[in-house]
């Protein structure tokens, strides 16, 4: 049975959220870590390479940060956000990139099923939630994305660095005006909280992947590094650098 550390941080500010994820990625001695979190205020995050001007919703968001993972912009409200930080030699991430997405998404799909959602990889079809010109992650889909009701409901992206991976993801519990008509858990059940979904998902991770999860917190070094990195994520020159 593989030991995993879980870190839960509810309603934290955007820059600190991104700082802690980077700190977890850059902690080579850290145990495999699953982080579950939410944002306050509900910020919009840009993909690492996105241009600020290419995301019209960024002008309406209460707070904007730039992630170190790629992909499109996400409005982090009414969702469970997760990050996984682990070595690339972990069985979850071994082999081709696509296979790692399939493994992670399979367990999310199993958790979604417990809420009455039949989530499937998109495959080759087009989605009703696909839209041009918004720069939003949930309006742009790829074959591995989890979809239901012809819409995308889970978005995730990876950063790989120094033999480790940071896998960011958003599991939508309900829609927000900035993202519009996308899939969410509310399609089957309204009012599911991030904490409720987290409990079901972590139980599935234990059952399906054989993880032994241990509730934990960032160590003092990771906290200090997160605080320091948060300064960069709070800096408009970094957020608007492209």
């Amino acid at each position, binding site marked *: 049975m593989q030991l995993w550390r879980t870190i839960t941080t509810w309603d934290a500010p955007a820059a600190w959220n991104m700082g802690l994820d980077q700190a977890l990625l850059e902690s080579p001695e850290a145990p495999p870590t699953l982080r579950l979190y939410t944002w306050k205020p509900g910020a919009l995050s840009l993909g690492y390479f996105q241009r600020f001007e290419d995301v019209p919703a960024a002008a309406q968001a209460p707070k904007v940060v730039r992630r170190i993972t790629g992909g499109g912009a996400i409005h982090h409200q009414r969702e469970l956000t997760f990050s996984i930080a682990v070595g690339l030699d972990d069985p979850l991430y071994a082999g081709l*990139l*696509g296979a790692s997405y399939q493994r992670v998404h399979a367990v999310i799909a199993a958790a979604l099923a417990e809420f009455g959602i039949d989530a499937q990889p998109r495959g080759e079809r087009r989605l009703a939630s696909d839209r041009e010109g918004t720069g939003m992650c949930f309006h742009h889909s790829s074959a*591995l994305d989890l979809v239901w009701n012809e819409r995308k409901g889970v978005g995730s*992206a990876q950063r*790989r660095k120094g033999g480790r991976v940071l896998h960011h993801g958003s599991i939508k519990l309900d829609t927000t005006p900035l993202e519009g008509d996308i899939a969410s858990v509310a399609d089957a059940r309204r009012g599911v909280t991030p904490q409720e979904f987290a409990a079901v998902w972590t139980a599935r991770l234990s059952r399906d992947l054989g993880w032994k999860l241990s509730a934990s917190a960032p160590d003092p070094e990771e906290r200090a590094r997160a605080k320091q990195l948060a300064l960069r994520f709070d800096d408009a020159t970094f957020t608007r650098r492209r």
Partner: protein
Amino acid sequence: MRPNDRRYTQTHEWVKPDGETMLIGITDFAVRELSNGNEDDLVYCDLPEAGRVLTAGETFGEIESVKAVSDLNAPVAGEVVETNVNIEEHLEVLAKDPWNAGWMIRLRPERKSLDGLMSAEEYEKFVAAGGH
């Protein structure tokens, strides 16, 4: 067998001596891992300006595929004297020819030694064992 006229890193870069300079790129394994076997999946690449001085192992650029951003690391220390700007606009070159047309930066190395880096044979074994 991958080219044996160069050396390889564990993070899947290659470095090839070329006169007084060295060319640096990424391997076919790196490209395949990033692009999931689909060359259109590579979307962005940031490379450094000429004149930047790098230490061995330092990140000199970043590459993004549809599903992952990865660092590009310098196998050896030296000064960047040229960047293959063609790459940034034509990422498909990396999938078509990672060994020649897909070079990324030309470095004036601090030292000529490539000690500590893998030979083609060693890199083959490393990749066969999973590449991590």
